[in-house]
């Protein structure tokens, strides 16, 4: 069974997974083992197949061929809605239900599962977890800022205590400051709750900061599979190096600016 406790997230296994749309192959024969409790980032340009790969894990997309296993259970054997209720899912457009209060949005997974007791307590707990004030519970989504809304999105995904979190560009629409603080807070949550997290992002800096393992995708294939440290050392190939080069150059530029600034002052 898939673990639903927060003690430890499940391991994921992909075996020769392929997905085509007509003549276009979005994901091209990928096999992959993801260890329980790891924080994996899927990085690549638009159309590289990273989002499709993520959605095959919770069956928002079904593979054309191959198998996806979560903790040794083949996802194809599980009803899609049953499967998805056990997996946290956060995406760029958030998709809070505009006609429900924040409290009901957060508790919707519990409502679907038919859990009647302790919803208010769980909502309070989750608001605290994502660092939102308690009075938000009674508000409507449109009364919240983008960053607050995505915190609610994360809280909603965590409500049913899933072991696995799938995040599709979760912080992509947020301003840099909010994005940075939210990313940092999520990383802490991941560790605290012992989750398995797979995040899709096109931002290598974010991936380097968050993940303990980075998969670089291009044209439906994984071109690099490395730790942040290995990527930064430049030892994993040209595709990865091209992506890492950008944040590295930006960082170098900022440092250089800081130095000249500092030099002028002294």
């Amino acid at each position, binding site marked *: 069974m898939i673990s639903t406790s927060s003690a430890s997230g499940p391991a994921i296994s992909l075996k020769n997974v392929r997905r085509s749309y007509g003549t276009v192959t979005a994901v091209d024969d990928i096999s992959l083992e993801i260890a329980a409790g790891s924080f994996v980032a899927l990085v690549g340009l638009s159309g590289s197949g990273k989002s499709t790969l993520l959605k095959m894990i919770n069956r928002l997309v079904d593979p054309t061929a191959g198998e996806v296993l979560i903790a040794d259970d083949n996802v194809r054997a599980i009803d*899609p809605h049953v499967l998805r*209720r056990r997996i946290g*899912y956060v*995406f760029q457009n958030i998709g*809070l*239900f*505009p006609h429900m209060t924040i409290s009901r949005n957060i508790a919707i997974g519990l409502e*679907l599962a038919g859990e009647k007791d302790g919803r208010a307590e769980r909502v309070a707990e989750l608001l605290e977890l994502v660092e939102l004030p308690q009075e938000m519970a009674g508000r409507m989504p449109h009364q919240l800022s983008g960053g607050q809304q995505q915190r609610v999105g994360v809280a909603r995904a965590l409500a049913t205590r899933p072991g696995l979190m799938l995040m599709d560009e979760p912080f992509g629409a947020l301003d840099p400051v909010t994005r940075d603080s939210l990313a940092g807070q999520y990383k802490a949550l991941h560790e605290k709750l012992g989750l398995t997290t797979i995040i899709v992002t096109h931002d290598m800096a974010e991936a380097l900061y968050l993940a303990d393992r980075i998969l670089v995708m291009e044209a439906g294939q994984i071109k690099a599979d490395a730790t942040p440290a290995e990527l930064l050392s430049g030892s994993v190939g040209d595709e990865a190096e091209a992506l890492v080069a950008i944040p590295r150059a930006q960082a170098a530029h900022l440092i250089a600016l800081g130095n000249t600034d500092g030099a002028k002052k002294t």
Partner: protein
Amino acid sequence: MTEAWQQAFVRVPELLAAHVQLSFSALLLAMALCLPLAIWAARAPKVAAVILGFASLVQTIPALALLALFYPVLLGLSALLGGEISALGFLPALLALTLYALLPILRNAVTGLTGVAPAAKQAADGLGMTAAQKLRLVEAPLAAPTIMAGIRTAAVWTIGAATLSTTVGQASLGDLIFAGLQTQNWTLVLTGCFASAGLAIIVDTLLGLIERAIRDRRKLVVWGSGAVIGIGLAIALLPMLAARGDVVVIGAKGFSEQFILARLIGSRLEEAGYEVRYQNGLGSAVVFQAVASGDIDVYVDYSGTIWTNQMKRTDTVPADDMVNEIAQWSASEHGVTMLGALGFENTYAFAVRPEDAASRRLTTLDDLARISSDFAFGTDLEFLERPEWEMVKAAYPIRFKESRSFNPTFMYPALSSREVDVISAFSSDGRIAANGFVVLEDTKGAVPSYEAMILVSEDRSGDERLINAIKPLVGAITVENMREANYKVDREADKRSPRQAARWLDEQIRNGKDQ
């Protein structure tokens, strides 16, 4: 004037209740049909194209035609199913109005459901909602204001179009409008208009309130407005609970003489202890089918109409033979009893202005044919389509400059005001003599005889008490009395209601018997 208003208002509550029952039933049925269809259509664009195409097509059919079309359709169905379906009254009106309400509900529901933000739908999927949960928790609530707006439009349309259901014999506020139009009783027309417009405005306001409250998520207002509508409906539906006794349904076509004779028969039946109900404004073609199928129990028709329209005869026979042949035919073919002729004739009479008759020396239809290319012809709404017109054209070489159809009420003023030069008047109409119009003689006997006669449905034919109550009317009405009674209703000043004219006619009949 106040008395006229009072008389009109007395009829409002009952008709308003019938109007509400009909409109609400049609709306409810349309919603029951549309909402599942819309859910299907929102998921399948091809289905949406087909369904919306059909609904748009229905909308292009005039409401009046749609109502009329359901009569033969239901008649055919009824024949297939052994006569269990009533082709007149509530059912055809309900079906036509339901079809009419489809488009706004469907279109808004499809728009509302397809317009739900993709992010919300993706979130619903990602959270593991089943299709039913997604519909109930996300799509339906988000589409609700748009759907409600569609229902609101449909409600207003339906309440307006329901006034036309009078023409298929369903009671509605249209009864006031149509009856008022026929008898030039503008008080009655205005009362019908105000009542139906008022109903539409109130319903529109309440549904609008609900629509906005759903949008703003103010549950109290939604429930409050819903409760007001519910109470209104309950009041309208109350009469349905009252037990219906044995009611005799008296049919009438759409002109004053028919209204008067229906009331006359009605008053005699009420004296005999029957409860009666009137179905006014039935078309000539519909009304005989209605008595044959038992939708109405008794009405007055004219021998020539049955002869040509129902029996499809084009030969002309002496008046007495015609009446006898009709009696045999209706009894053997439809089980309808021809109780007897009332004693007067109401034939088509070609009438011209007196000055034209003098200056152009017109006395016969042959004279009219001679100068017909100079003349414009005014008729009632059905004459040009009737076989009698073919028979006249076959006998006389008539070819008019132009032909125009009028509501009978407006045919006479049209002749006076020179809009037309000759009209197909009704010989028992008081307005011919009152205007001094000259009736041209049908020397060749092209137009068949139009003896007014009472027809009784099969079910009531064996009811001796009923037959005995109306039998005294046979042979009791002179054409002079009928003309005067008609004129009391039709004239411009000092108008009488059909009921008052019927009472006057009844007095003449009783006085005639006493002498």
